[in-house]
């Protein structure tokens, strides 16, 4: 960077830098929307079922490839996003019912469960390879017209995805705060045993959480595939790191924390990659995870309950 400025008039250089900042914040917000969507799904499921699901990334890839298949059938992209999301939600419930719940009943330790979800994730990834092959895929150019807004240049697709995320987050907020189901979910998240003894069917709540988490996951996968130029079966597992960073930043198990965390991670990595080598983008996410873990494992917004959940 310092070398680049020498040839140009100083003022223009400065303006360009500011423009770069503004623009990269815009990109960050767009990327943050996808991140928030994914991270909320990840954290919601953890908060309620208390299992860290590492196969979440692979489920995202499954969503992206389902989307690819449906686009091949000629469906509208936003319809694909909804159907794909629901389909991944169903996969997620199957994963919970068929694998996780029986193992939890058998008394498997959390560490064992992590290994199980890692394995399940790898199996899922290679199912994709077996069916669709290892090649790089693309949705084609779906970005639509470019919009100028507050000095940001964004594509229609980015704006629509942002809008969808906002709507989903609002919906989740209303669900959690205004409905009986949401109260039951929050109760289960805070204290499962107590919730069960209060007559809440915690295993059903847990199914619903896995379904919602899977739906968010699938939609995030398709949204990611829309905004990215090309992808392969590792799409989701690569994206898992910034998602975990978002979740950890906001406090694992805290949906609102994950929303803000997603935005922060999105903007910070976008801005940093504008001024630094983009190859290091995920290093920022990694740094966030390690620093948060060592300094404040409960996350920025984690409550005392969250602390007790996380500390051994």
């Amino acid at each position, binding site marked *: 960077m310092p070398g680049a400025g020498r040839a140009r008039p100083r003022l223009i250089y400065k303006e360009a830098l500011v423009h770069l900042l503004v623009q990269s914040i815009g990109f960050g917000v767009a990327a943050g929307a996808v991140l928030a969507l994914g991270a909320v799904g990840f954290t919601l499921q953890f908060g309620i079922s208390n*299992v*860290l699901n*590492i196969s979440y990334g692979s489920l995202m890839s499954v969503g992206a490839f389902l989307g690819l298949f449906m686009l091949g059938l000629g469906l509208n992209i936003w319809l694909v996003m909804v159907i794909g999301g629901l389909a991944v939600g169903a996969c997620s419930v199957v994963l919970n019912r068929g*694998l996780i719940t*029986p*193992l939890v009943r*058998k008394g*498997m*330790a*959390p*560490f*064992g*469960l*992590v*290994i*199980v979800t*890692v*394995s*399940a*994730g*790898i*199996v899922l*990834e*290679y*199912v994709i*390879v*077996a069916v669709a*092959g*290892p*090649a790089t895929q693309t949705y084609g150019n779906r970005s639509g017209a470019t919009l100028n807004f507050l000095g940001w240049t964004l594509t229609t697709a980015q704006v629509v995805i942002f809008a969808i995320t906002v709507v989903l987050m609002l919906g989740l907020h209303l669900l959690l705060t205004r409905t009986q189901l949401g109260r039951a979910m929050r109760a289960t998240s805070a204290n499962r045993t107590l919730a069960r003894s209060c007559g809440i069917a915690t295993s059903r709540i847990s199914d619903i959480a896995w379904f919602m988490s899977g739906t968010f996951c699938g939609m995030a996968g398709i949204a990611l595939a829309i905004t990215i130029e090309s992808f392969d079966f590792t799409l989701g*597992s*690569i994206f898992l*790191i910034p998602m*975990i960073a978002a979740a950890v930043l906001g406090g*694992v198990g805290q949906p609102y924390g994950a929303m803000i965390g997603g935005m922060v991670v999105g903007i910070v990595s976008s801005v940093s990659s504008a001024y630094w*080598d983009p*190859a*290091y983008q*995920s*290093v920022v996410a*990694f740094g966030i*995870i*390690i620093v948060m*873990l*060592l300094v404040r*494992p409960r996350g920025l917004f984690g409550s005392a309950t969250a602390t007790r*959940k*996380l*500390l*051994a």
Partner: protein
Amino acid sequence: MANLAYIVVIAAGAYTYGILTLGPDTGNGGFQQYVLGYRLPFFVAVIAAAVAGAVVGVLIGVTGLKRIRQDYQAMVMLVISIMAATVIGAAPSFLGGEPGLSLIPNPFANLSPATGDWAYVAMVAFACVVGYLVMRRFTSGPMGRALRAMRDDEHAAAAMGFSIVKMRLLTQAVGGAFGGVSGALLVAFIGGWSPGAWAYVETLALLTAVIVGGMGNDFGVSLGTFVIAVLLLQGVQFLPQIRSHTGLTEAIGWMTLGILTIAFLWLRPQGVFRERRPRYGQPAVGNAGGGEVAEGHG
């Protein structure tokens, strides 16, 4: 707790060995950037790899020192292993970036290929025997007992006067040194090393080996590693390649690995071989030295 970032330790050994033996740039097309340019003898480089492995092992271990839930820690370990590969892949001037290091000299290059291969086998066998003996020092007798106690309940162990930090870092360092040596030996044989060789799935392969063999049993772990490495990952290459489906056989290999891991954790979590538990007999009364410390299967 198993170290889910163990692959990073192996990679540290492999890279260390690589950069210490590659020698200065003597024109292999100039595509490779040289970090150090040393050409150290084989054994020196292996020892350096062991040290590097131990150091990296300890550094990774530090993140585990905070009192955090096991699964949370496991997640961080996974993130570390993915990140390490990403970072090194992204920096072409450091450790060769994505293409990695290649043309690492074979220690037996001056022997004929056939003798060279046998020499390599003999060397690995020797390393395994030494490794096994060193490992026994740690896993049998009082030291093994203390380590198993730490594994079961660290805080109760601390209440018994054991320093959690010291014991953890000790195990990380020893485990790291082992990983470093195995990385060095591996890279000495295959001659090249790149981030692609130690991605996320390779971590699973290591884990599967440990789980199938039986976590608490040295022999089981060794055998498990052998079976996984030879039969599963190399064996699939002998399956007929299906033309229309590139990568299918590889995919089958990894899927089998994942399913095997889950199946074992579900059906036989102790692995094929159980942990050996020493039995202690009651010392004969009035005969101070006469007590028998008998070891056998528990």
